[in-house]
């Protein structure tokens, strides 16, 4: 978060109440997930909704926007009781929810998506010119440099998010609900989004903003409501709560230490050495060393080539040049199998798309990567169950039911399971890509401590993250990438946000590589 954003807090609390939830209870079958929750959304105000995964935030906003019906309690819109039969009815009243998982038709263009189901027509035919002009106007308003004729599948995730917001704007949303909109956005895009949110607030739109990121809530919200275990804990003006207060209210206890205490030792032997690795169009001449017991951070803006570099190292991506050495000896890694045999493991950032089989339960997910360990001819289910037992214990996976599908798990439990899955191969080097995306603060801290445990046991970790606090809080050294190159490896006091940004934007770090060894 930049200083500008922090200073732009609007201390004024907004106008009249637009939409209220009154004593909302919600049960799914026998399980109650919301207990008497009330919330008021004021015109011209950004109201933040804060809570751990599983606190009931998503259920609450789905009720407010008509996706679910409350079991008890009701909604009041502009002083009159309403009930939305479905989300369309909600949108008809100007209540629009932008989901965490984007809902865009991948094969359609940007403009077709923005006007999906509400196409502008002239007579019997679509008025493509009008739609394009309007789409163009909305995107420009969002400072989003995307051609309305581009297909969604060709867009980056952050551009897709902007398209979703443009779509909501085009629906004349006057009560806008954003469910973790910044999870996939880069710092600059977050700024643009916040500018838009502020602009909408000035126009009198009531905004409900869900996020895990306390910095963001400090920066953008006027009022905050904290939910915990389906119950309303507090609603206060943001200025009256410190970040520590919010974290404590959310978790219900003090988080003593967010990051593990680690001792870095740069004289430890080098376990992995990458030299002049290139991936056509993505990475150029990347070189770095990784020491035993070290956390090496990789920072950079989205598209800088960090993930491409890591996928090339583990054999999931074709590389055009480069050598890899393990403990001083060159190794040939042409497939993920090779990487596994070399003791290198990779945790994908896309845990739903590439990490876990969402339609299956925990056991097959846990053992999939290390399946040969559980029998080459017949899979030993007892051994699998025993491994699952151990993993649940070691990684504190909180699943109500062993047989539940992994897709129904909270993000935190999915991430813990993914970590457990990768650790089944007993790697010496663990590459972790965005370990805490979309995860609540309590689980985040747990994952940081797991990483600390790994290095304490002599394993080495490469950490890719766009969250500055965890990058700074965990890494011994930080490699920064910009446009496919490693522009610098920061050590000691150079590991600060300012230096990272200078290198990530290409202000610092010359052609070639400045490897500080």
């Amino acid at each position: 978060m930049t200083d500008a954003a922090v200073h732009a807090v609007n201390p004024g609390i907004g106008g009249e109440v637009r939409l209220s939830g009154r004593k909302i209870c919600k049960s799914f079958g026998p399980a109650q997930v919301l207990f008497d929750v009330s919330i008021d959304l004021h015109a011209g105000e950004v109201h933040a909704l804060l809570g751990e995964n599983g606190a009931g935030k998503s259920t609450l906003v789905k009720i407010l926007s008509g996706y679910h019906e409350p079991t008890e309690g009701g909604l009041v819109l502009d002083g009159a009781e309403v009930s939305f039969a479905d989300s369309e009815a909600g949108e008809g009243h100007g209540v629009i929810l932008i989901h965490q998982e984007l809902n865009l038709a991948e094969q359609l263009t940007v403009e077709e998506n923005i006007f999906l189901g509400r196409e502008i027509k002239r007579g019997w035919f679509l008025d493509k010119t009008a739609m394009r002009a309007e789409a163009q106007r909305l995107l420009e308003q969002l400072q989003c440099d995307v051609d309305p004729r581009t297909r969604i599948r060709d867009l980056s995730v952050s551009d897709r998010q902007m398209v979703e917001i443009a779509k909501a704007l085009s629906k004349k949303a006057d009560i806008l609900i954003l469910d973790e909109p910044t999870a996939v956005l880069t710092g600059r895009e977050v700024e643009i989004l916040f500018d838009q949110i502020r602009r909408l607030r000035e126009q009198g739109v009531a905004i409900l903003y869900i996020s895990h990121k306390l910095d963001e809530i400090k920066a953008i919200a006027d009022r905050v409501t904290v939910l915990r275990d389906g119950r309303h804990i507090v609603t206060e003006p943001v200025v009256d709560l410190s970040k520590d207060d919010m974290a404590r209210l959310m978790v219900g206890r003090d988080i003593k230490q967010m990051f593990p205490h680690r001792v870095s030792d740069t004289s430890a032997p080098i376990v992995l050495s990458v030299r002049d690795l290139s991936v056509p169009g993505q990475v150029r001449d990347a070189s770095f060393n990784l020491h035993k017991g070290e956390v090496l951070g990789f920072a950079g803006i989205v598209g800088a080539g960090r993930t491409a570099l890591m996928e090339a190292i583990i054999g999931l991506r074709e590389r055009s040049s480069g050598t890899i050495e393990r403990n001083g000896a060159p190794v040939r890694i042409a497939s993920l199998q090779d990487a596994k045999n070399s003791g290198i493991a990779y945790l994908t950032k896309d845990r739903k798309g590439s990490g876990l089989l969402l339609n299956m339960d925990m056991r097959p997910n846990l053992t999939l990567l290390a399946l040969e360990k559980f029998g080459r001819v017949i899979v030993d289910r007892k051994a699998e169950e025993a491994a699952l037992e151990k993993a649940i214990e070691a990684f504190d996976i909180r699943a109500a039911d062993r047989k539940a599908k992994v897709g129904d798990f909270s993000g935190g439990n999915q991430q813990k399971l993914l970590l457990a899955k990768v650790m089944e191969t007993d790697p010496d080097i663990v590459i972790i890509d965005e370990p805490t995306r979309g995860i609540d603060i309590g689980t985040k801290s747990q994952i940081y401590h797991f990483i600390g445990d790994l290095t304490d046991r002599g394993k080495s970790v490469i950490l890719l993250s766009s969250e500055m606090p965890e990058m700074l809080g965990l890494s011994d050294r930080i490699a920064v990438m910009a446009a496919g190159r490693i522009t610098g490896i920061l050590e000691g006091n150079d590991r600060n946000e300012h230096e990272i940004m200078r290198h990530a934007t290409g202000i610092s770090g010359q052609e070639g590589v400045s490897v500080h060894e």
Partner: protein
Amino acid sequence: MSSLERRAASASSRFSIDFKALGPFLALVVLFVLGTAINDAFLSGGNLSNIFTRAAFIGIIAVGATFVITAGGIDLSVGSMAAFISGAMIVVMNTLVETLGPGLETVLIGIVVSIILGIGAGAVNGLVSTKGKIEAFIVTLGTMGIYRSLVTYMADGGTLSLDFEVRGTYRPVYYGELLGIPVPVLVFLAVAIAGYVLLNMTPFGRKCFAIGSNEQVARYSAIHVDRVKTMTYVIQGLCVSIATIIYVPRLGSASSSTGVLWELEAIAAVIIGGTMLKGGYGRIWGTVVGAIMLTTIGNILNLTDAISNYLNGAVQGLIIIVAVFLQRGDWRRKKSK
């Protein structure tokens, strides 16, 4: 989703899985009760043995199809493949009669040829779709036409007939019995058991499930996706060849109309059995029951005058749709989910 919500969701999914597991068996029981009510002869040993023997062809092919579909693929070429392999076997055996005579050697070489062709044809389907990155639907639609026209060509548009004396040697493979059970039924049982073990108990089977659920996750789990997928088509080809081996002695002939629509019956058996067409979940025993159900429907229609036998296809089609609808379980779920 909250933990409570999750518990609720898992409770409902557990219920539907139970339904999935038992559904096809219950449906088969209903069919048998219906059959007995319609005609006492239904439960006679002869009739039952007839049902199971006929179910064996489609059933064996469907066991192979369960692998392909579980791993997210589809094979439309199996009917044509069966016709082609039948034709090739007959041509080879008829040619060998001149040198080896109509004895066991001739039949054995015919069987070996069948197995080689089945594995080869399956490998073609698998390699073209994985290495060529062409959708399996398109590839097997293509090979379906190719195999079909090859058998027409070999038969010169007519019918290929197996040498009369070889038929005598080969006959027990279809008409024979062991411990009172027809040979095709025993082969069906053996294929089903082998299929069950392979799909449910081995790393290979687990990989099929993983690939069918999400290929990307499989790739990120160090699974050689192309290799495993190709293997499923090879298994399919092998199953077709086994089905053909017991089919040829039944009629002793092959023509361009051999095996027509078998691919659809096999896929139907797989789907009725609870395997998901989009992949990721497969059940061999369900497939076995599905194949028996399809044959039983035809059999019951033969035994009754209430519905014309010509409506067999309509009844089968109806049952397929109802079976899938029931298995999905959505029909009992409330809106608020």
